[in-house]
């Protein structure tokens, strides 16, 4: 609660320089109190970002172990390490974990931590909503894994086609855990997306106009706008499935006039934009990271930024390419085939921009750079295999074979995991104040790179040789044993690489070299502040005039310079600046909320509600619902002191 003195309704903010006294004042205002309360109640975007990152990496490791068990089962023909039921749950849970519980949350984590820093703000637009999105993500992960742990994990793949997902064919609770868990997770994704969208439109430093934003901001913004409008499709699909299963509705079952393809349309209208949402922010990391290590600005900033948006816009129009074999009419097939081929163009644009940045720069081979540079090759391999599947008649052979499995792993590991690992090497010093070990980093990189390619390049071959997807074994006569064995060996090598990454991170946390504010001599605003940053990020809000604030002296391009040392002070409470969306002109002073347990309670109440739905215990549903309602009312209760500033007159 704010003090008894009623704040001024408007004021001209003071401009000043950074002083130790100012820092002390801001520290006291912004710090999260140590101890359990502070940990659970924190709304600091940096804490929330780190939680997202750690949780997502744990889930990556779990999903990876699932994959290794799968690879052991497939290392040779007719093996019996797993029963079919176990295998089917493993591959489905692996997909769910990687695509929903790792790929998006990891990017949310990095974006959460970095956005206010790279945009020149003190926090995200909605700090409490931020905390809520994390707690619900954690609850959803636990909810879905609870099913797996009691032997009722998802068992119909990650895209969960009907009718196999309907009760007649899938009587256990597997599908109910998955469906309700996904709806719960969808809440987290949606509120997180809303937070990013509003933050980008409102919470920037003066002068950080739309054409000066880091590409990470463009990527996450694009993904978030997309998520806002496509996540409802999948949440709805899962809800309708749950209704079909539990309440005898007929959305998907043919017995009552439902259609199995309705599921596929709803799912893929979400699913295709989703896969762009889980790579565009990572591509942004590469676009922001390569310039640092190539010692020059990105070549083609504007095309890359617009190409990011174009990829997503086109991405809304290609979902049917997941359904080419379902018997659709020719005209529709031709249209979606064309769109799917053309979507390669903005991706190609990014690749050429990156190559040009390398060719016209002086690359320094840090570990981060190795990951960013190698992803270009992996991106292209994933891209061309995607291009092949875009051609309908070719896809009629390739789809549902290991060729597609090769494609998806090249695009997901190549365009998400490799950039994320590179981003970790680059930003770890900022997050933790310590450098990662570069020598171990080399070992990490080469094991991951060689292992990944050894594992997944041969998969193109197993696909062309006809190995179908989602088979728990294959006969010896199919000639697939040798290539699968190579894939298994490669996967284990890749896993060792990932292990080295984790070891490096943990070791560096304990004993890495101390990191200065800007160890890479990079250009972004996050490198202006200490490593790790103070809780308030910027002691004064800087004024920005270019895309490369910390390089302006050396680039010498503009008559003006960004003012990084003197700016708006904003210390009359927990305050930051709101700016206009396009030109980032100062617009108002925002008051940020204090740490609070309400988001945690709301997440708990919502989870209780979903547990009630899962078990069909209506008292539990009511308890969760009322709890959630109470939390929401408490959260949204207006501040009386706001109107006291400008009371009604007359």
């Amino acid at each position, binding site marked *: 609660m704010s003090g008894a003195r009623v704040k*001024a*309704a*408007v004021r*001209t*903010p003071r*401009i000043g320089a950074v002083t130790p006294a100012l820092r002390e004042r801001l520290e006291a205002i912004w710090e999260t109190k140590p101890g359990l309360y502070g940990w659970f109640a924190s709304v600091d975007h940096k804490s929330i970002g780190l939680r997202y990152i750690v949780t997502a990496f744990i889930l990556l490791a779990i999903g990876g172990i699932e994959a290794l068990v799968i690879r052991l089962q497939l290392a040779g023909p007719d093996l019996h390490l797993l029963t079919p039921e176990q295998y089917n749950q493993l591959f489905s849970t692996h997909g769910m974990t990687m695509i929903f519980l790792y790929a998006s949350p990891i990017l949310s984590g990095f974006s959460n931590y970095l956005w206010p820093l790279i945009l020149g703000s003190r926090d995200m637009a*909605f700090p409490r909503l931020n905390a809520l999105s994390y707690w619900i993500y954690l609850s959803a992960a636990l909810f879905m894994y609870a099913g797996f742990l009691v032997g009722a994990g998802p068992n119909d793949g990650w895209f969960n086609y009907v009718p196999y997902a309907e009760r007649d064919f899938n009587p256990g609770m597997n599908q109910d855990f998955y469906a309700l868990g996904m709806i719960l997770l969808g809440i987290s994704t*949606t509120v997180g*997306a*809303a937070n990013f969208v*509003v933050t980008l439109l*409102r919470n920037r430093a*003066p*002068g950080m106009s739309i054409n000066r934003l880091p590409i990470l901001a463009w990527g996450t913004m694009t993904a978030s706008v997309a998520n*806002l*409008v*496509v996540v*409802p*499709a999948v*949440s*709805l699909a899962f809800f*309708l499935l749950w*209704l079909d299963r539990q309440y*005898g*509705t*007929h*959305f998907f079952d043919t017995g*009552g*006039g*439902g*259609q199995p393809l*309705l599921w596929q*349309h*709803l799912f893929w*209208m979400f699913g295709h934009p989703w896969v762009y949402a889980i790579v565009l922010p990572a591509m942004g990391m590469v676009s922001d990271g390569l310039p640092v290590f190539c010692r020059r600005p990105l070549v083609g900033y504007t095309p890359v930024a617009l190409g990011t948006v174009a990829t997503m816009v086109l991405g809304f129009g290609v979902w049917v390419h997941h359904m080419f074999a379902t018997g659709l009419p020719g005209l529709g097939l031709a249209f979606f085939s064309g769109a799917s081929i053309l979507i390669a163009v903005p991706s190609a644009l990014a690749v050429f921009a990156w190559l040009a940045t390398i060719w016209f720069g002086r690359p320094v081979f840090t570990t981060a750079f190795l990951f960013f540079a190698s992803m270009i090759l992996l991106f292209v391999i994933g891209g061309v295999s995607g291009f092949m599947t875009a051609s309908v008649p070719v896809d009629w052979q390739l789809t549902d074979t290991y060729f597609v499995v090769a494609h998806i792993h090249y695009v997901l590991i190549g365009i998400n995991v490799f950039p994320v690992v590179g981003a970790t090497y680059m930003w770890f010093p900022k997050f933790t104040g310590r450098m990662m070990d570069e020598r171990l980093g080399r070992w990490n990189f080469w094991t991951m790179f060689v292992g990944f390619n050894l594992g997944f390049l041969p998969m193109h071959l197993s696909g062309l040789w006809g190995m179908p997807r989602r088979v728990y074994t294959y006969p010896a006569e199919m000639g697939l044993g040798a290539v699968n064995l190579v894939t298994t060996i490669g996967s284990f090598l890749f896993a060792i690489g990932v292990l080295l990454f984790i070891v490096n991170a943990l070791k560096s946390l304990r004993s890495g070299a101390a990191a200065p504010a800007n160890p890479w001599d990079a250009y972004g605003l996050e490198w202006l502040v200490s490593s790790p940053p103070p809780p308030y990020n910027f002691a004064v809000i800087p*004024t920005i*005039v270019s895309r490369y604030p910390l390089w302006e*002296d050396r680039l010498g391009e*503009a*008559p003006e*310079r*960004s*003012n990084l040392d*003197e*700016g708006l002070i904003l210390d009359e409470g927990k305050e930051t600046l*709101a700016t206009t969306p396009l030109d980032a*002109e100062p617009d*108002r*002073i*925002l008051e940020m909320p204090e740490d609070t347990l309400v988001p945690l309670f709301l997440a708990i109440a919502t989870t209780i509600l979903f547990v009630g739905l899962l078990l069909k215990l209506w008292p539990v549903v009511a308890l969760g619902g009322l709890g959630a*309602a109470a939390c929401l*009312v408490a959260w*949204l209760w*207006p501040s009386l002191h*706001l*109107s006291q500033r*400008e*009371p*009604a*007159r007359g």
Partner: protein
Amino acid sequence: MAELATARPAELAVGPTGAKGAGWNGLAALVATEAALFAYLLFAYYYLGASAPSGWLLEPHPSLKLAGPNTIVLLLSSVAMWWGERGVKLNRRGDALVGTGLAFVLGALFAAVQLLEWKAKTYGPGASSYASLYFVTTGFHMAHVLVGLVILALLFLWTAIGYFSPVRRIAVTNGTYYWHFVDAVWLFVFTTYYVTPYLGFAR
């Protein structure tokens, strides 16, 4: 020697004023995502209807006896809330309370009539895909109406105890926009389920 650019803004408002504030942007994001949800529900109707054999429409000529007037009721409720918000903007608490209160009553009436209509149907959600879609779509809308009623009740309470002033009233604006959104969704749902059959869709 290059010059340092320093933003020196004149007076800035502290916190939300009028209809401007982070909360409004948040509401816009919420409206966008919920609108998308209803778009997908309506897509499901048009998709199933377009490929269904004749007889899919359980009511080839849906009765407008209840739904027609009910639509007017909901529209009037939006008008009432507009009046209520105007009352807050112009510092007329009486108008504000009357408008908000009337919006609540009309909204509650809409919900009650909708319940009656559900009861009057000769089929339940499990009868067919058409029935499932009808009940789930109007059901989702009803859920949004109920949330809206809670919001209206809270706005009434907060207005009554003096939380808002002409400049500091963003909660009222946000709540009003949400209520208008619920109304707009109903127009799409109504057109889809009650009007398109008369225009020949799925018949």
